[in-house]
């Protein structure tokens, strides 16, 4: 055991503790406070404080709780990502929740809890802790998916997400069991150290265990063929929640995947092939299925599958570069994908909205700025420069080429070619298609405006000046690698 990690350093858990604390505070206060706005503000404040506390630990890798907690730069990067996603989600949620009549204070608490769970996932190198973090993240998400209790679509999203999620958890646990059986530990550091022994001593057990763990997280990041829940859940869940789904848990899934497979099982060669095939399948299925969707949420669901595929390309490439490229991509992806969902949320906050693509018609004429921002997000999703989407893809693909995966990269770019078609469809609808009926007015709220501004700014800034975030992402690595 590590010299330092034997001690129990509560201070390295301050961000989580703080966020959890605010979450509990909301649970308490919520019962007495009428003002939901206040609750939301409280949640945001909590997250911002968590963010600041996280930044405090930058460039100061620490380990605690017998090595169960490892707060390194990578973890901090993810902290920031999760917290930002949480803040943005909360900011964009209010008007939607109010319109649907489902605004309850627990909503904000759940997002905080889920965020804390993700942070736990990202900051551990022990399979058991990662698993627990996953559960702390997922349980609130199950609830959030079904948060609109009176809406049968939301119900259905909740139950599907829950059943599939629990099902995947079963495999994950079984995988952990196998790894435990093979190595006698769940500590990734020890697994990495002993990997060559494991691979020769009990190869099938180790590999199968690793694969089952992979599957558990592949489910979370929506990799094919473990993606089936995604379209239904994304479509059914309340729109801001969908936005949150598409970003935060996915990032958390990748955080875990990277910890496990770029660190613990980094030497597992045969995994490359699996990731290779999975990446291709994920991109292709996501993109092709997205082509014919007429519901924006569903289309974005498939799109998020495709994006998971691109990130898997980076994971396939492996190496340090892969880690930072994925970090960069996730950061960029958070901005434009949440931005896109913010726009959809705004539209969905109107009565009678079904998020059908035809509802966008005429948007540009009535709300030119909203349409412009929406188009920006679509172009970013499609990977046009100078948006963040482009540089993200560029970075990932460059890592793949560097790793020698030229054909994989070609398939990836062909995929992003296909994706252009469906990402342009909302733009076509917003700008080109004549509106049959008037684009009904949307209600701008300060929160959603802030989200749109932040995400648009992030999308553009990360595109124009990728250097800064790039440097940061390159400072992230697993310190004990």
């Amino acid at each position, binding site marked *: 055991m590590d010299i330092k990690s034997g001690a129990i350093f509560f201070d390295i858990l301050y961000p989580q503790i703080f966020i959890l604390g605010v979450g509990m505070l909301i649970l308490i206060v919520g019962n007495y406070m009428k003002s939901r706005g206040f609750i939301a503000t409280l949640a945001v404040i909590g997250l911002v404080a968590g963010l600041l506390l996280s930044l405090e630990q930058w460039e100061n890798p620490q380990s605690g709780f017998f090595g169960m907690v490892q707060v390194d730069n990578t973890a901090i990067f993810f902290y920031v990502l999760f917290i930002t996603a949480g803040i943005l989600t909360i900011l964009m949620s209010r008007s939607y929740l109010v319109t649907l009549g489902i605004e309850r204070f627990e909503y904000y608490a759940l997002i905080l809890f889920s965020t804390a769970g993700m942070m736990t996932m990202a900051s551990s190198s022990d399979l058991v802790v990662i698993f627990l973090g996953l559960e702390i993240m997922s349980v609130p998400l199950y609830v959030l998916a079904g948060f609109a209790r009176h809406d049968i679509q939301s119900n259905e999203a909740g139950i599907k997400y829950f059943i599939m999620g629990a099902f995947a958890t079963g495999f994950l646990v079984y995988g952990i069991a196998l790894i435990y059986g093979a190595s006698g530990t769940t500590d990734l550091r020890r697994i990495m150290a002993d990997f060559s022994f494991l691979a020769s001593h009990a190869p099938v057990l180790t590999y199968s265990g690793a694969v089952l763990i992979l599957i558990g997280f592949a489910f979370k990041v929506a990799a094919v063929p473990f993606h089936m829940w995604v379209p239904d859940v994304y479509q059914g869940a309340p729109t801001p929640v969908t936005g949150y789904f598409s970003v935060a848990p996915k990032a958390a899934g990748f955080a875990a995947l990277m910890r496990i497979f770029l660190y613990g099982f980094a030497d597992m060669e045969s995994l490359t092939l699996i990731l290779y095939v999975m990446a291709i399948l994920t991109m292709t299925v996501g993109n092709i299925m997205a082509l014919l969707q007429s519901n924006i949420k569903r289309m974005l669901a498939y799109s998020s599958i495709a994006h998971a595929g691109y990130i898997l390309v980076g994971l396939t490439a492996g190496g340090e570069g892969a880690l930072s490229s994925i970090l960069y991509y996730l950061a960029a992806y958070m901005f434009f994908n949440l931005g896109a969902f913010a726009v959809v949320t705004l539209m969905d906050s109107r009565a009678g909205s079904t998020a059908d693509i035809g509802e966008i018609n005429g948007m540009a004429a009535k709300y030119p700025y909203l349409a412009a921002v929406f188009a920006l997000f679509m172009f970013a999703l499609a990977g046009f*420069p100078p948006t963040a989407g482009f540089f993200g893809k560029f970075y990932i693909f460059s890592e793949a080429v*560097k790793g020698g995966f030229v054909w994989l990269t070609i398939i990836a770019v062909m995929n992003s070619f296909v994706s252009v078609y469906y990402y342009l469809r909302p733009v076509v609808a917003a700008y080109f298609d004549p509106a049959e009926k008037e684009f009904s007015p949307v209600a701008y709220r300060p929160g959603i405006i802030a989200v749109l501004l932040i995400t648009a700014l992030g999308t553009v800034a990360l595109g124009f000046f990728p*250097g800064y975030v790039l440097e940061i992402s390159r400072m992230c690595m697993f310190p004990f690698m």
Partner: protein
Amino acid sequence: MEKTILTLVTFFPALGAILLLLVPRSQHNSVKSLALIFSFITFLISLFMYSMFDPAASGMQLEINVPWVTGFGIGFHLGIDGISLLLIMLTTILSVIAIWSSWNSITTGVKGYYISMLLLETGMLGVFVALDLFLFYVFWEVMLIPMYFIIGVWGGPRKIYAAIKFVLFTMFGSLLMLVALLYMFFMYQSWAGVYSFNLLDLYQLPIAREIQTWLFLAFALAFAIKVPIWPFHTWLPDAHVQAPTAGSVILAGVLLKMGTYGFVRICLPLFPDATIQFVPLISVLSLIGIIYGALVAMVQRDVKSLVAFSSVSHLGFVMLGMMALNVQGLEGSVLQMLNHGISTGALFLIVGMIYERRHTRMIADFGGLAKSMPVFSTFFMIVALSSIGLPLTNGFVGEFLILLGTYKANATYAIIGASGVVLAACYMLWMMQRVIFGKITNPENEKVKDLSLREKLVLIPLVVLIFWIGIYPKPILERVEPAVKNIIKMVEERRPSQSHTAEFGSGVCFQDEAKGHCTGIRE
């Protein structure tokens, strides 16, 4: 000033676009004027830049190289040689003209339109000044978006189809280019030990022959689609016909040149072996394009699509001359890029002008316009003649040099290519015949007003250029020559470069540091 002038030229229109954002939507006139002023000042700046350019010096001038994404060796590296200089001038002039020409034709979404135009200008200029491959790629893609909107929002009845086709075609090519670009990037890294997207650095990189082939194909596909080389041309007629007038002007005038420019700037010097290897293929495709474009243009019923197909033919000439790989051919090719921009740009303007009056572009709907619109017809005639390469107009000098150069390289190509000159006369004159000559059969053609002052002023600069280049092309040619010679030198000298490719040959092995073994190239 030396260092900033290119940045200024490139981003001045974008600055205008940002300022336009602040103007209220309803104030059409201020929007228009502001856009015009900004594009015009850009033009003035580019004139200043022209004066700063030293015609005698070879190599890049007015360079600026600021690190941008240091982690990737990406720099904000701008610089021009004679070739880029000309294309920049073309872009700035055509942008002013295009913006001014849309004065009355764009009535909806005015603000968005002019913002798109200005952004488009920045995108195009960026492609021509970028000396960093990454930057080049960024600009290359960036300009797609405003063009997409220009076609899609302000276009004709099938605008959506055309806009999407345009974007998808271009994207298809450029994405493969991205892979090739990355591949080269890492090759450079393993050769030189540092990361760099700097084109001038990459020029030094020796690449094994078979890898060159692949890289060349990837880049060439992107450029070929843009040019467009037959058979990748089918997006062009649709895009041209559906785009609004100014869009067509820019599309034909500048955007297509980005493809040919790409070939000159990237494919030729970077992959000399592959270039030599692909000369026959590209030449033959260009020849097919020349003949094909001309023949198909001949039977068009819509003036605009006729001009569009004529572009296919003309760009065939440009590529043919380039593939001659000698001074005359390449110089002619560069000059012809310019010429095509001017002539075809003017043709589209002219078509736009009658379209505004008659709301049709069908050849059959016209006839006898020379009677009712003599001034218009004169302009039309001059431009058409320049387009078919009549001596003392710009088209002649370019086509002559191209064919002269091509003849040296391969006489058969030149002979076939020259037949395109005849066919050009056929389709152009036949069209003129049916549009401006003959009896007025449709009474509506009798009442049409001749050109307004604004329209005349829009056309006059182009006509002046047509004759200037036709009569006194020396200032242009002497600026192009050092650049062209440079490129030829690079192709010639770096050919069969067996000696120093040894360490990075076909058996290339990418050292994967994390895994510590050779993953090789999976192809």
